[in-house]
């Protein structure tokens, strides 16, 4: 039981951080720094928690950044490879929403990302049942 209480405290902390992150992303997007915004959104993901609220909150932020991307190739070139695996996870989360515009955008990025990062990237996303986003 002690574990769950700590988890709850932890969760509030994470939500706070995500809110700060959200403001930072908005300002980055205003400056047309889309890649920076996406990096910021992906930073610290997946939240080391099972708390669904945290995951949803972070997804909203990442979603905002993903939808703002216009130049996908440019974005992937600018994005460091260490972000590829986590980005792939969020793409699958996006696809699971079933929302038309979101799916359109996620599929487009998915195609380009798979070209660059290979099937291994998809495998790492599908097999990781611990660090889910």
């Amino acid at each position, binding site marked *: 039981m002690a574990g769950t209480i700590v988890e709850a405290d932890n969760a509030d902390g994470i939500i706070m951080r995500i809110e700060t992150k959200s403001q930072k992303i908005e300002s980055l997007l205003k400056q047309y720094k889309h890649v920076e915004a996406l990096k910021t959104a992906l930073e610290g993901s997946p939240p080391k928690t099972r708390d669904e609220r945290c995951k949803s909150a972070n997804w909203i932020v990442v979603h905002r950044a993903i939808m703002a991307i216009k130049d996908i190739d440019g974005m992937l070139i600018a994005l460091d*490879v*260490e972000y590829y*695996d986590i980005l792939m996870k969020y793409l699958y989360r996006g696809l699971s929403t079933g929302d038309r515009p979101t799916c359109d955008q996620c599929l487009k990025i998915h195609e380009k990302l798979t070209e660059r*990062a290979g*099937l*291994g990237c998809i*495998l*790492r996303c599908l*097999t990781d049942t611990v660090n889910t986003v």
Partner: protein
Amino acid sequence: MAVVDVHRFAESITCHAWSPDHSMVALCPNNNEVHIYKSSQDQWERLHVLQKHDQIVSGIDWSSKSNKLVTVSHDRNSYVWSFEGGEWVPTLVILRLNRAALCVQWSPKENKFAVGSGAKTVCICYYEQENNWWVSKLIRKRHESSVTNVAWHPNNILLATTSTDGKCRVFSTFIKGVDTKDPKAGSPAESKFGEPILQLDLSYSWAFGVKWSPSGNTLAYVGHSSMIYFVDDVGPSPLAQSVAFRDLPLRDVLFISEKMVIGVGYDSNPMVFAADDTGIWSFIRYIGEKKAVSSGSSYSSQFSEAFGKFYGQSKSATTNDASESSKSRGGVHDNCINSIVSLSKSGSPKVMRFSTSGLDGKIAIWDLENMEEELGHQF
């Protein structure tokens, strides 16, 4: 070209093993039989069919000194076969399992063999002279899921296992009366039977093949998440590295030297991994391709702080220009490769020849003799 010989023996091969002189191969054609073939004048001639198991044979190993075969099967039994008067004579080994046996390996001294099983246990079997009987001793602790592979340390005591719970573990298999105490005091080999020496939590998904380097200093294993893991200084403070690569996951690994590893798996083309001078492992190239892939096509995460916190720490991050999948290159195998076996004398520091078998029913023999230049100085 690195491939010396390719032969299709069956629809599919689950596992294979070579006779001590490498002239004969024992394989399971995806059923309850073990076939033994001999190579003569570019032909493979079937000499024996061993029929004793009731279900698929999942593991075969052929001891190089005593010329004994050990087979394990999904029927939960194991047989030790000795060649007497032109026939292979089986001895049943009761493993005391309630699930399928999945893999088997003779220990370096060939006085024991280890069986991994779906019953979350590892059986260590040894011969009891008085009773003329193979005894199975179980390591029941620790494994939370099926044991997919086992590998013996050259010291004949330590055993590494991989499991579908994602973990790689190292156990002591010291058996009184079979093993003699290591004169070096304080070595982990001194621990009693079944003692866990190390547990590695690097992978979040199924772990498959595991091997020790020839000296036993390094351990490599693979995960179903397109990652390969290297562990140095196995003991209380291990140094671990995770290397992610861009293609399909691996099923088995083989050290060809202290600094080079071949991985085989779903990509049907063996991959070469090597450690540089600073000990950092990375993907080098596919073995069945002429042109070397730019080193940036894989990205590895390096850390030295022990296990458990590898995720997303990559430093050597260089952007990769996509190269085509190995499928289009027309490799030697057409399907998943599920095992890789050394064709060198046991205990030799370098493996120059090895064989691979897979779901396409082929066994391919590879020779690295002329590849030293291509593979670089690490070899």
